[in-house]
């Protein structure tokens, strides 16, 4: 089973993108960061009590599924959209969603386009082998608009092609758009159109058939969401563990019961996740929040209690 393998080799092999700021991106010293990276780090914290026992494999969109299928990586955490076909026939299991996204369009401001419906006849750049490619096709077909697709092998090159003026429009998930816009030389000269043309639930993916591993990855995220809901953060978790009397919280941080055992983990697994990586809100703010270069609002990715859709099953 994957868990045993991972424990035996001492680290998690995590498949990430080749560089989307805020989601998974390596800095000039080779240190990876981003929401997708933190997903892997949280799992590592749950298993090893140390968030840094992760090795990263940068993958282009077209390599990613094969890499996971073949066992090259243990978790694919690389803004991958959860779709029916992928879940059902690729030999993959989507765990849960850590980022609710939707596809959008980015254009140059001086083009004078305000709405996606004005894009008839435009040239559109996107990355090869993604749902984006299909959504784009569906969108233009649905509205019987003409377009010229320029499908580039890697996201980076697709962005380059857009930047060099090969295309009028760059399309990908809106989070990606924001991240990519931050990479452009003059971000303010580009705008993201208001429409969202698809649902893009993004989350970590694991191989089909290993339920234990799937549960670990799934519940790692649920722990982070629950922690935010309960107000537990990396800052106060130690204090809370020592002082809290709320049985729900005590169960979560491992002060009571042996919740980790069912997953094959230690009882402080959730504690470690929160201590090492933080709760969901922390992860979001740190990587893509308004104060970062990417600058995304919390929006739909907020707790259900705050008007978002994040709703994690209780840990009990």
């Amino acid at each position: 089973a994957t868990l045993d393998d991972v424990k035996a080799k001492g680290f998690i092999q995590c498949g990430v993108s080749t560089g989307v700021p805020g989601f998974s991106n390596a800095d000039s010293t080779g240190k990876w960061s981003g929401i997708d990276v933190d997903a892997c780090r949280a799992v590592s914290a749950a298993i090893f009590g140390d968030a840094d026992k992760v090795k990263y494999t940068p993958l282009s969109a077209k390599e990613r599924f094969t890499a996971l299928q073949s066992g090259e990586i243990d978790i694919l955490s690389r803004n991958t959209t959860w779709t029916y076909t992928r879940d059902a026939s690729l030999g993959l299991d989507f765990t849960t969603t850590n980022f609710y996204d939707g596809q959008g369009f980015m254009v140059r401001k001086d083009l004078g386009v305000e709405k996606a419906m004005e894009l008839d006849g435009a040239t559109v750049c996107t990355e090869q082998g993604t749902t984006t490619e299909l959504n784009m096709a569906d969108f233009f077909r649905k509205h019987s608009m003409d377009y010229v697709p320029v499908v580039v092998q890697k996201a980076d090159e697709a962005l380059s092609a857009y930047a060099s003026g090969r295309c009028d429009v760059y399309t990908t998930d809106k989070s990606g758009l924001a991240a990519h816009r931050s990479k452009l030389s003059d971000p303010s000269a580009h705008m993201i159109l208001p429409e969202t043309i698809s649902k893009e639930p993004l989350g970590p993916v694991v191989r089909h058939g290993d339920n234990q591993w799937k549960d670990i990855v799934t519940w790692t995220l649920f722990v982070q969401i629950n922690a935010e809901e309960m107000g537990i953060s990396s800052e106060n978790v130690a204090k809370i563990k020592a002082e809290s009397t709320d049985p729900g919280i005590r169960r979560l941080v491992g002060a009571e019961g042996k919740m980790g055992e069912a997953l094959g983990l230690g009882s402080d697994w959730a504690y470690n996740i929160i201590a090492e990586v933080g709760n969901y809100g922390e992860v979001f703010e740190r990587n893509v929040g308004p104060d970062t270069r990417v600058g995304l609002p919390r929006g739909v990715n907020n707790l259900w209690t705050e008007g978002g859709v994040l709703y994690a099953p209780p840990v009990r």
Partner: protein
Amino acid sequence: MAIEFKPSPSLPPPSNAVGAVAWVRKNFFSSPLNIFLTVFSFYILYLLVPPTVEWAFLDATWSGENKDACTAGGACWAFIVAYFDQFMYGLYPQTEYWRINLAAILLALLIGMYAIKAINKLILSIAVLIVYPVVAYFLFAGGILGLEVVETSLWGGLFLTTLLGVVGIVASLPLGVVLALGRRSNMPIVKSVCVVFIETVRAVPLITILFMASVMIPLFLPDGLNFNKLLRVLIGITLFSAAYMAEVIRGGLQAIPKGQYEAADAMGLTYWQSMLLVILPQALKLVIPGIVNTFIGLFKDTTLVYIVGMFDLLGRIQSATHDGDWLGTTTEGYAFAGFIYWAICFGMSRYSMAVERKLDTGHKRN
């Protein structure tokens, strides 16, 4: 009675036959077509050279923090300067650069030692081919003697390019020899296995092989058995160029006269003795140009690892040009990469010519 013969003195040629004027006339203006070609060539030079010189030198900017520093309108070499370390070493930790440098110096020293007569070439070769790789591996990867472990995923830049090239070259040669011998074997199964392998590999693009190596091999291995991606890519590259190498070497083997095989047989040498002592030394020497061409091809082909998500020199440059601070420096990046690859490949081909000449005077003098 015999008239004495004194050869008339040699006169200098008429001025229109030699010297700069004659040279110019003969090379540039000897016929209408020639005149046209000359004018046309000068026009092309005029189109290409001044703007290039202006862009690359006169108007270039050599230092700066980001693209905004490059205001002169020429090349923005500041970008290369800023990213130079990454282009050379990839994401290898800065504090550990000395390990790569040390390995490079060691290799240069070892190769330089070939020039010294007193050293036994066999021992030296063993050192270069067996001891050195082990030492270099531990230097690069670390993990012993208190060296910090450096993940292969951090290896990149020119370092990775060189590593892929050198390992591919060193490993594909012996494999190519074996395949070539196999293809010329008179054992039908050995022969067909080699033929099928060589022809299949030669028929498909390197990309497919790299793709297989980088993501598909694990599908063919039992659960849990897996090995490093860099290693898999190396194996892919090696197999690929071994197939080409085999064909080159086969050409050399075919050029050795049958008499040499027979003489070796008649002297009682075994198959492997006669190959190693008699046939291969001659065959390999014959095909040095072909071997070097394969090396150069291999070295250039290492750029394809970029497509399977490894960051060699080209990959590093390509991703650096996406840095928001340096957007629009694509041309500089490509020019730099082009120059490095060119210098190495061109150097290799010239070096091989020199080696060939040297071996030539050494052995065949008829």
